[in-house]
């Protein structure tokens, strides 16, 4: 069974058609990149899949459950879904430690007392911080973290509970080259060990070629899809991007399953 099924999806935002008749499926434990120029509708597509913005037509199924028109999903399905945003712009406002934040990732959706879960919750947080190399950061405030540390903490927030589908919206944005490599290396390891299915919005076509199984090229409609080596050929890219915005020719690198650690 596909983890995510999207069929005939149409999204209108602020009166503008952002996504038109998009259909695709994500197989279990696959790593799929969503690429396209700015304004192509990538964030709208991700928002509609997560149930954050309404869709005008089409179907979204996650783990076989239909996403309701207002983004409703059964709680046990929602708990298996994780989202990693570009940044947490308001992180400086909250006096929130890394351990407290990751603990909220363990809590299932719905009302519950903050101390319920006790030992199991503490143990899960400890384990998630260890898996992501964030153990020494446990008592640090979110506002005290560097960009790379924050991304690792966000991954800890996702890994603190078993998930099936992880959606990343330009997660590497704002990171320097070594931090980007470290982030993707950690993501690769976690995907393998946790059995995650990944859908990631990305502008980094080199990274997509090296680490993703499948690519979806979006420019309002799905322009191409398939293995990165085929879908990201020069001819396909010229169809997808405006010539002025076309990324430079890809660096030739040996195919690899795992990005280098910088």
């Amino acid at each position, binding site marked *: 069974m596909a983890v995510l099924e999207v069929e005939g999806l149409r999204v209108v935002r602020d009166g503008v058609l952002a996504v038109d008749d998009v259909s695709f499926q994500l197989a279990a434990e696959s790593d799929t990149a969503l690429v396209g120029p700015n304004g192509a509708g990538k964030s709208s597509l991700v928002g509609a899949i*997560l149930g*954050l913005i309404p869709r005008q037509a089409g179907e979204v199924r996650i783990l076989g459950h239909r996403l309701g028109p207002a983004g409703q999903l059964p709680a046990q399905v929602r708990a298996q879904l994780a989202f990693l945003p570009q940044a947490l712009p*308001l992180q400086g406002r909250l*006096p*929130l*430690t890394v351990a407290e934040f990751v603990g*909220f990732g363990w809590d299932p*959706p719905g009302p519950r007392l903050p101390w319920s879960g006790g030992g199991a919750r503490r143990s899960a947080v400890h384990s998630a911080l260890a898996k992501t190399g964030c153990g020494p950061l446990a008592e640090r405030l979110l506002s005290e973290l560097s960009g790379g540390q924050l991304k690792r903490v966000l991954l800890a927030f996702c890994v603190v509970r078993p998930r099936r589908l992880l959606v990343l919206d330009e997660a590497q944005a704002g990171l320097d080259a070594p931090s980007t490599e470290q982030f993707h290396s950690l993501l690769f390891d976690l995907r393998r060990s946790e059995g995650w299915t990944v859908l990631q919005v990305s502008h980094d076509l080199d990274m997509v070629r090296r680490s993703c199984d499948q690519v979806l090229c979006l420019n309002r409609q799905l322009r191409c899809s398939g293995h990165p080596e085929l879908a990201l050929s020069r001819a396909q890219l010229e169809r997808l991007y405006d010539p002025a915005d076309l990324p430079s020719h890809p660096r030739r690198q040996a195919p690899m399953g795992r990005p280098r650690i910088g």
Partner: protein
Amino acid sequence: MTEFSPFSAVIGQPFMQRALVGGLLTGALGGLLGSFAVLRQLSFFSDALGHSALLGISLGILLGLNPTLVLIPFAVLFALLVNLLVQRSQLPTDALLNIVYSTSLAFAVVALSLVTTYKGGIQQLLFGDILGISWLDLALIAVLLMAAVAYLLVSLRAQVLVTLHADLAGAFGVGSQWHRIAFILLLAVVVAVSIKAVGVLLISAFVVIPACASRLVSRRFGTYLVLSSVIGGGCAVLGLLGSGLTNLPSGPCVVIVQFFGFLLALLWSLRGRPQRLRAKPAVTS
């Protein structure tokens, strides 16, 4: 013959005992809600709500209705309308709220000037009358405090995620819009109920100052919430005792104590800052 100290004379008065309990509850309630209001940049919103409360009271008096009964539905309706306006308009929020609260104040003063039968003074509305608080008022504030504590406790994860990142919250199953509106409504009811004790002009201090003081010294979210309530309640009790001993106005005394509490927190938070600054590398051209 038994001699009473000025302190025992102050706390021996039944109205003062009610005021102390009322101050403790109102201060703790303001501190608790303020801890989220400040993080969500709703400080100015609570100020606008306070000013609108004066309009609600004025309309109640003008229509011959009990102002306290009019105030809660008025504040709730007003909060919903302002929230809608802020969400739909493309104008900056602070500018919109400025328009709303100054206009409310203008309408309220005009409405009060039309009333000839109102016995309460404008001073009482502006600065509150915590010494005149009744047992019924206390019961209402206590129930509200319990409801606020219960709601914020069971929805703590949702409140934190909504404050941090609306899309992150939504993706993890939190109804951001629902929680945002529920919090604004709770804030509106708290402001409406506290106005009698605290006054229109000082209500936002009860919401903002304890939370800011707590934010400066807290390194955990749980500590921040509890400390904000403790500072709110503690400063209210100290301010009221000071007011009773010096015969100065009670509401302003509480706010002055809150301000000194904030200064202490600020000084505490600045400890060690010069060392950190010195540790930074020198700027070179």
